């Protein structure tokens, strides 16, 4: 296999949200450490799965990469250009190349716009088409995502959840991006509809050579769709490896517990499985534990985990992990 080409390079990405107190004079009294130092690459044409439980910072990561949130520190190189240093028109121009599909198909489409206006808007904003051409492109995009082109004049409320998510996909594709952040695109959908949307995303990736950052908490679906998988816990990445490596040889105790907790739809397998049941809850990101963030729930935690933050290191080619005990 040829050396994979890096499309997005994320280095030491940090995003803190300030917590303020006071009404007229606001002073900062703390910060939510949503994302705290991520370093990873996304290769061209791959699907990188990003998993973790709610509040671990996976959505913030996706949004910060796209500069929907400006990072507190760190850099995001997209095709060699540091997005963090761009602003205004330069940044807007880069945005054509990277898009997002949102989780909630009910909240992410403007109810007062027709489907045609929603999908056509990016074309008009970025001046890539006008008039009749917009309409043609919209009809083509609708067909591409498996909807009837005649639906362009309808409003979002006339569609089911799965159809709305297709509209969201069509909007993301309108500017022919190379990179799409899919932020839990299927978790609001019913099981039988999820498969429809996932198959669509896979077909589109094949056809247009898209690169996905696929954010999800459903580990079975992430295994299905991803080439490589990264696991996050409380704002930090704890493990990153190729899909089979991660699922077959998880090294970090959190990854191991997470994988063992996922039910498998097969009673014969379920009867034989041993679960690692983690104690307690995820601590608050306002005041994360010192050293290793997972140590408060980790079955292997030792003294060093309290004092020293584990280093993000490559233990075998392409397999990164942050743990003292590995």
């Amino acid at each position, binding site marked *: 296999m040829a050396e994979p080409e890096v499309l997005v390079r994320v280095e030491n990405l940090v995003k803190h949200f300030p917590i303020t107190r006071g009404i007229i004079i606001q002073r900062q009294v703390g910060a939510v450490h949503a994302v705290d130092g991520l370093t990873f690459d996304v290769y061209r044409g791959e699907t990188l799965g990003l998993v973790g*439980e709610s509040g671990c910072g996976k959505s913030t990561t996706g949004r910060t990469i796209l500069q929907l949130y400006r990072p507190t520190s760190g850099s995001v190189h997209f095709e060699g250009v540091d997005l963090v240093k761009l602003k205004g028109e330069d940044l807007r121009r880069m945005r054509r190349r990277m898009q997002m599909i949102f989780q909630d198909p009910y909240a992410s489409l403007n109810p007062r716009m027709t489907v045609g206006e929603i999908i056509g808007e990016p074309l008009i904003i970025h001046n890539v088409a006008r008039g009749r051409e917009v309409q043609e492109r919209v009809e083509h995009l609708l067909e591409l995502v498996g909807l009837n082109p005649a639906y362009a004049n309808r409003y979002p409320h006339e569609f089911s959840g799965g159809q709305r998510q297709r509209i969201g996909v069509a909007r993301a594709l309108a500017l022919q991006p190379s990179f799409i952040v899919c932020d839990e695109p299927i978790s609001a959908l*019913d099981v039988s509809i999820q*498969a429809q949307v996932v198959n669509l995303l896979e077909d589109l990736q094949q056809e247009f050579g898209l690169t996905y950052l696929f954010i999800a908490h459903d580990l079975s679906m992430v295994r299905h769709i991803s080439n490589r998988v990264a696991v996050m816990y409380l704002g930090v990445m704890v493990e990153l490896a190729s899909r089979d490596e991660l699922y077959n040889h998880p090294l970090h105790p959190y990854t191991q517990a997470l994988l063992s*907790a996922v039910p*498998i*739809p097969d009673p014969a397998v379920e009867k034989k499985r041993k679960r690692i049941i983690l104690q307690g*809850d995820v601590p608050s990101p306002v005041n994360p534990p010192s050293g290793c963030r997972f140590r408060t729930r980790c079955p292997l935690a030792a003294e060093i985990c309290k004092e020293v933050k584990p280093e993000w290191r490559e233990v075998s080619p392409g397999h990164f992990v942050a743990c003292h005990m590995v």
Partner: protein
Amino acid sequence: MTELLTVEGLETQFRTREGTVHAVNGVSFSLREGETLGIVGESGCGKSVTVMSILRLIPSPPGKVVAGKAIYQGKDLLKMSDEEIRHIRGAQISMVFQDPMTSFNPVLTIGRQVAEPLEIHMGMSRKQALERAAEMLAMVGIPNAKERLNDYPHQFSGGMRQRVMIAMALICTPQILIADEPTTALDVTIQAQIIDLVKRLRDELGMAIIWITHDLGIIAGLADRVAVMYGGYIIEMAQVDELYAHPTHPYTIGLLGSLPRMDETGHRRLISIDGLPPVLLEKPNYCPFAPRCKYAVERCWHENPPLMSVAPEHQVACWVDTQTGRER
């Protein structure tokens, strides 16, 4: 095994502006002593409405149970007076809801809420009841249970709140626990904690459970028997091993095929079920799954199939034998 609860021909409808919604269209099943029955289906298939109807928790209007029986201890729950059903609910049959955030009263302490069933059903004094509540909270794994009696619901995390709800449901040691998607709002590691807890309590207290979920993974590890619902009907029912080994209804086959498995190797294309779930504004005189079914034959379009036995303890509502592709 003796049957604890027998439901026959249950039908529930809701009046809405668009017309009458036929949420449950004649559901029959029984729950045996000590067993765990899983009810699986997608949103809007009528699984929650079924159990809410049995416990008489359907708001009326707009909802109405229009037909059916639910026999518990020789009596029909659906015909009982409000007074009688109140003695059963929370004491002999209790329920755990999906959303641990909104199912508590935010202005009462956890202790008051967990102890309340004891005061009402067992006639205990407040002091006795609170003592017992502390024991129960400890049993479901709440640290410092005694001190936490005075805390309010917002002071607990989602997983902890679900534990408290389970404690509240089990405090009168009911014979039947109905759990309506109790882990859907929780993260997987917390979900594993809760399922582990329910299994332990089930073995200790010997109650029967009806577990409602859309997650076929959870059911595989938890249930003894499974009922699959679609469009207000039970369309397949079997022992858990049988159902996963030999799914027979085209919908069940499709549902299992559309799930990626965490233990799968290599890549296969997911089987998707085309089309959309039915709109329940009319009670169809054809098979509710026919519009999405690739096996459908002429008969499916003018006759709704009843549940038919295909193997011991395995019933399916389909005119087509999906293994041979021929009509039954």
